[in-house]
């Protein structure tokens, strides 16, 4: 499982001087802070298409991929059911909330429907965790893929709850606190808020006792068991936490797309989610968003590019698959790993005289 052994090298050094701590923190997180500022002011310059269909969509896929990254990177559990968890919460917000299908939807207000959807999705995620924690390692992929596929075929076949292959349409973001969140710019900020929140909470938990225990379990479950940690409970809790993140992503996904159908959480989407997480890199939470950005850019513009270089524009999936293969074969820790190696190499050639290499 060499892929999973590269977590972030978190510099937990304690600063000598108090005053230096803040500026050091700024220095360490300069890239993230800069990104945050850019994202905050983006609505001033970007068109609505870029705001929602590119950046917003990136952040939503990133949130869902982040939940996979959390499980895989910190817990060593590559769960393919994260898109399915998002799908469950997306379907539930349509079933309990507002949609164009009065026969199925219950038309609860958002403050009741959204928590309900999240609770059901988290329960589903925890159940997935309980099931896949019964086995280990590579079996996790098989079991979670089987669960994801079963859910896809269920949504396809079931009419009383999931409305078959037609799914639900017209599921708008609500009007709340005097803001119509359906409008592009409020929706963008809503997505940005939850993307930042989930990023920060994953970053925080990875350093908190729970996250550290989880990483210990990833590296050596037997030893952690011997020390007295309840391995299964930690794993299931990790699944539940990841499901919480993914379910938020699922609701935002439905509000952005204004529809949900079996394809939204289908097998292709499930696999795309793994592709996003692996391409971005399972070593750091930001990898999920980088992977999502690459994916969305490819998805949005590959048609034009493929046609421009004289290829069939419909071969998008081949492009994605080949790109994924290249990453898996040559840079198992994703784009993040690629970047780190570049930085390392640059650093080494700078201090080559000091002999301070790794």
């Amino acid at each position, binding site marked *: *499982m*060499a*892929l*999973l052994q590269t977590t972030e090298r978190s510099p937990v050094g304690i600063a000598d001087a108090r005053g230096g701590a803040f500026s050091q923190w700024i220095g360490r997180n300069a890239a993230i802070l800069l990104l945050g500022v850019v994202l905050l002011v983006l609505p001033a310059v970007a068109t609505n298409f870029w705001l929602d269909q590119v950046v917003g969509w990136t952040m939503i896929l990133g949130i869902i991929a982040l939940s996979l990254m959390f499980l895989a990177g910190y817990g060593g559990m*590559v769960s393919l059911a994260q898109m399915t968890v998002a799908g469950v919460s997306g379907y539930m917000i349509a079933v309990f909330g507002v949609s164009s299908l009065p026969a199925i939807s219950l038309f609860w207000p958002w403050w009741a429907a959204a928590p309900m959807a999240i609770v059901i999705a988290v329960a589903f995620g925890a159940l997935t965790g309980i*099931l896949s924690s*019964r*086995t280990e*390692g*590579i*079996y996790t*992929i*098989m*079991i979670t*893929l*089987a*669960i994801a*596929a*079963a859910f896809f*075929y*269920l949504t396809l*076949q*079931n*009419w*009383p709850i999931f409305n078959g292959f037609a799914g639900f349409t017209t599921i708008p973001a609500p009007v709340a606190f005097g803001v119509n969140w359906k409008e592009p710019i409020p929706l963008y900020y809503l997505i940005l808020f939850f993307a930042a929140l989930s990023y920060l909470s994953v970053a925080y938990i990875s350093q908190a006792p729970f996250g550290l225990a989880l990483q210990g379990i990833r590296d050596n479950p037997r030893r952690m068991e011997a020390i007295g940690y309840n391995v299964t409970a930690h794993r299931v809790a990790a699944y539940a936490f990841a499901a919480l993140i993914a379910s938020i992503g699922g609701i935002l996904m439905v509000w952005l797309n204004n529809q949900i159908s079996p394809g939204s959480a289908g*097998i*292709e989407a499930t*696999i795309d989610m*793994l*592709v996003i997480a*692996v391409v971005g890199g399972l070593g750091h939470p930001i990898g999920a968003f980088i992977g999502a950005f690459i994916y969305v850019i490819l998805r949005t513009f590959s048609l034009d590019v493929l046609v421009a270089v004289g290829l*069939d524009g*419909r*071969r*998008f*999936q*081949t492009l*994605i*698959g*080949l790109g*994924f*293969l290249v990453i*898996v*074969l040559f840079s*198992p820790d994703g784009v993040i790993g690629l970047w780190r190696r570049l930085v390392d190499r640059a650093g080494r050639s700078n201090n080559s005289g000091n002999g301070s290499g790794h």
Partner: protein
Amino acid sequence: MSTAFGEDNPAAARGDALGRWIGRHPVWSLVIAVVVIIFLWLVLAPWPAGFEAVFGKKRLFVNALFNGTTLGGLYFLVATGFTLIFGLMRNVNLAHGSLYLFGGYMGYEATQWTNSWLFGFVIAFISCAIVGIAMQFFIFRRMEGQDLRQTLVTLGLSIVFADLMVWVWGGNAIQIDTPDYLLGPTPTPIVVALKSSGEAVFLQYPIVRLVIFAAAVIIGVAMWIALNRTRIGVMIRAGVDDRDMLSVLGYRVQLLFIAVFAFGAGLAGMAGVVGGTFQSISLGEDSHFLLASLQVVIVGGMGSIPGAALGALIIGLAEQFGQTYFQNYATVSTFVIMVIVLAVRPQGLLGRR
């Protein structure tokens, strides 16, 4: 972990063993006997009118039973290669569904050319075996022991394969013609209803499905014999248990891996032709059969051929009965079976740790 491919009970000892087992578990024996008798009654006897009023027509039940069993035969053909590859090489081949689909398309092309249904199987087997050999030789040989990375590679390959197959064969469903000599239904000795005159109506069932099922059983038995009675089989079983030791002893493990991958992929390809004849092959069938293989090996036990047979039968029956009796929740039935097995026996019904 001991041998994962069935046990070596000498057949002669079977009769005695059964007697002793009954002696040791009288209650279970009784329960099993009652279940078997009820089952035989359900299948063989015409159902009374009151019974049919509650449980639906007998024709539906028997059809679901036959369809489920023959579908189980098809699932066995697909899943057995999957489980063999996994058992020996620890490679979860998520491109297995793509091999199934590819075999189906190649078999279709071959039957179109030559008008020979059987030739379709040969071509499907060979072309999928070649793809399997290429995958093992060029990719997986270089990343042995890295489970997750291998799995991700198979996933990437399945994405590419699926897209390339859409490119070549388009998105429409393709049906492979059943040959004339297997066309049409055959009467079976099972009574599905009684006419008002008291005359029995017998079930008519497509010959081709019965033939295919028989072929699947023959292939399964042949594989079991090959694994338990031949030298290659001994090597494979030894490799499943401890491939490092096998290679230390001087056996050409890489060659064995390639042979097993080729055979497993070829079986998937042949299953593609079967699937194309039974139902149809189209875009999306690759993930359907990948899911089926996953469920079969999760239920039956990973790396076990008897497990694949049992799992395939269970999943096939569950799917067909689900579709007959509760259409909206058909997939839930297979899912529930998977959940129960994982809860009670995480290694699968016939799997070993």
